[in-house]
């Protein structure tokens, strides 16, 4: 993806990048020599926001919410409940709502995924570009330890 080198003003749209990645990953898996990754693509292209998923098997799709690893089991249900709850499919959450939702998901993952840590970063993708926040630390609630 070294398109910057050409300097010809052309670049991949998020959708095109996703498509290209899908081809690469699927063809590698078909040669029984996979690139062992799960990739999420988040982008904005001319006002339209895009969220895509591709993995080592070449499984690829677009959805209002995406997650990898343990997140697929624990966070997706939370994300889908929030995003598809009594709102029109095109109504996106506000930045604050999305942030709060993300933190809730990350907290659950910290509690339940053995291979997790309590530090995280957040990237917000808009027309203007990518804004990276962090590293931030998750506040965990251990009150139940006293009930055991």
């Amino acid at each position: 993806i070294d398109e910057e080198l050409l300097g010809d003003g052309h670049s991949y749209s998020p959708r095109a990048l996703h498509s290209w990645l899908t081809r690469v990953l699927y063809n590698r898996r078909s040669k029984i020599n996979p690139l062992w990754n799960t990739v999420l693509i988040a982008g904005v292209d001319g006002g339209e926001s895009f969220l895509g998923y591709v993995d080592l098997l070449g499984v690829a799709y677009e959805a209002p919410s995406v997650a990898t690893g343990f997140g697929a089991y624990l966070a997706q249900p939370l994300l889908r409940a929030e995003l598809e709850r009594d709102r029109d499919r095109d109504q996106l959450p506000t930045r604050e709502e999305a942030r709060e939702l993300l933190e809730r998901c990350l907290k659950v993952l910290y509690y339940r995924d053995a291979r997790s840590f309590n530090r995280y970063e957040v990237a917000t993708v808009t027309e203007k570009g990518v804004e990276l926040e962090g590293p931030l630390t998750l506040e965990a609630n251990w009150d139940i330890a006293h009930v055991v």
Partner: protein
Amino acid sequence: AYIANRVTDKLTPVHDRIFCCRSGSAADTQAVADAVAYQLAFHSVELEEPPRVRTAARLFQQSCYRYREELSAGIIVAGWDPRRGGQVYVVPMGGLLLRQPFAVGGSGSSYIYGFLDATFQPGMSRSQCQEFVARALALAMVRDGSSGGVIRLAAITEEGVERTVLAGSDLP
């Protein structure tokens, strides 16, 4: 790996002033600990005095060695008795019995042997011991994926047992 219980209590009493620290299979260690607790209760009635920590450790060892092929249990027995005061015995997988100044077990223990050997001093005070244990566990919890959650401490003396919990921001 899924964490079924993030606040498990792995410090199990087998008598008033004798506890065991369980690692390995939860099912195996619970079963053995229950059996030893029963045996100790019976034994202390016969003896008409509190059982020795060494006796508790020996009881653990006898089960862990006899059934060594079937079990997956790493146990540390610690407590206080009038005969020898505070003691620590380790019964690792395989069923050997050994008394030690201090002991650690479980997958996270591998990461802290350096810290332990460099930091331990015989004759530490109660609070020094508690700080030593908390720091050691916190280090293991950071590095070992299979270690985490809260730190449970049980301080056992002639006076009795005092249990504390360190969680989240309390951790060193």
